[in-house]
């Protein structure tokens, strides 16, 4: 599974980033609390220019270069095929950042780690970005991706 961005519907409003951030690091989707009490970190990032925008999310590639190239074993694939990073093991070497063809895996300098989309795997329902996109610009799809 992966979230696919449809730039033709994207308004660039950024709600995806906000709900993504609030879904992680134990904030449980509580936007008010997350942004009042902490500095929540979004996994997927809105990209674009004044002319267009799209959410840069993880393709959860089949032969994922980030999983293959992880020097610590932190970057893994779960039994559903979702690629996620085990924060306990990530040492922040950024090898995965250097290897991600989509530029999706990002450094998080405060934590000395990387962050990426995990399809909100701990939430057990559709990813927060998809659920909260007001214009249907994000869709959950099952099509497989092989990088290039």
């Amino acid at each position, binding site marked *: 599974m992966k979230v696919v*961005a449809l*730039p*033709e*519907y*994207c*308004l*660039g409003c950024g709600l995806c980033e906000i709900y993504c951030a609030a879904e992680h690091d134990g904030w449980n989707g509580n936007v008010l609390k997350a942004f009042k009490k902490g500095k929540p970190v979004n996994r997927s*990032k809105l*990209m*674009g*220019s*004044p*002319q*267009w*925008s*799209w959410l*840069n999310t993880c393709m959860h590639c089949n032969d994922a*270069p980030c999983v*293959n*190239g992880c*020097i*610590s*074993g932190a970057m893994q694939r779960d039994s559903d095929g979702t690629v996620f990073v085990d924060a306990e093991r990530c*040492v*922040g*070497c*950024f*090898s995965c*950042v*250097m*290897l*991600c*063809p*989509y*530029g*999706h*895996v*990002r*450094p998080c300098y405060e934590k000395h780690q990387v962050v990426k989309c995990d399809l909100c795997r701990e939430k057990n329902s559709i990813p927060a970005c998809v659920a909260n996109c007001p214009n249907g610009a994000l869709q959950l799809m099952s099509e497989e*991706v092989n*990088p*290039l």
Partner: protein
Amino acid sequence: MRYVVIGSCIAAMGAVEGIRSIAQKGSITIIDGEQRGPYTRPLISYFLARPYKFKDISYRSPEFLAANGVEVIKAMAGHINRISQQVVLDNGQTVPYDRLLIAAGGSPVIPAIEGVEAPWVKTFYTLADAESLHALLAEGQNAVIIGSGLIGMKAAEALWQRGLKVNIIEKEAHILPRIMSPDSAAIISTLLNGAGIKLRCNEELTAIRSDHQIEFASGLCLHADLLILALGTRPRTELAAECGLKVNKGIVVDNYLRTNDENIFAAGDVIESKNVLTGENEIMALLPQAHKEGYLAGCNMAGHNLADAGGIFQNSVNIMDSSICSAGSLINAKSETLIWQQDDKYLELFLNGSYLSKYIAINLPEVTGPLTNTIEKQVMIAPDGWQEFIAAPSLSTIPSAYWHKIGGIPRANTWNH
């Protein structure tokens, strides 16, 4: 089917994953000569810097081995008998195989000079090396590191973090000579000097004296409480050569990671890999490459025919809180270079017409994923695309030809903002 793997680190774990992606049946036996389980070599510097935080640097867990039905034998393989298809261990035990993988890695280069045996002279390659340094070092000591490649730099950083006085000696004209350009190396040199780490380039080690004096060709003489030899690594090909497998600088394999014996495969630092940019076989000694080769070899041992396209040099490393990413090779001395610099960030691109052949990025990891892939997949991008990118490098300014090539993502928006 009996799958046997010599070596138990990165390529070996890739092979277990490859074999089990295809065959649930068949036994997998790993011969672990180092007897430390599947750990990750790059993390030995993390261990040395913070031994209490990085006590466990395993690459795959015991549960992983159990779940994949892997039997581990803690012994060195001493000989391969290709006729009887057996590995003979140092303890005399024999291990029969149907398919064998040699994933024996490399070993550090030790110069042929007197004094290298002294207990205060060390290499930095194994967890045991890091543990013995941990036991030996004391704050305030003088450490001299010979070689400023990645291993030397990570050793230097760890010893500096432990409070030693650190000197780095390089034979070439600047540090990290295989990765950096003179300009980019100067940025890192300034950073190291600022932290009190002393660098000396154009110096070649000639003698190690028993009174802890180290001599160099120029006449320079330094005192060292600890001396680290980080002069590079070479593949451990003895086992393969001795049983008649084809060996050049590393074990020679075909595109399917097969040696000249159809039942024996090899992967990781022990082989020569194809550099896709030059088309030449080279020793690449990189963890992502070792894992990928191990994985493909495993699939092929289990009966598939997956070709390895080769790889490119690529590295991401943090030194003194600065990120250094680099990928590719200088395939043409006349490459055009484009440089961008702002505050502590630096990006240098090496172009061959419409192709990117190498980049060096300091404190700018976020743009490097697409750049690495542009090089590895040789994506054609018109030079003016690079000119626009280098004016303000970011993910959003990556030339759109790249995004089109990798499929789909941003098309022009029909909405007017």
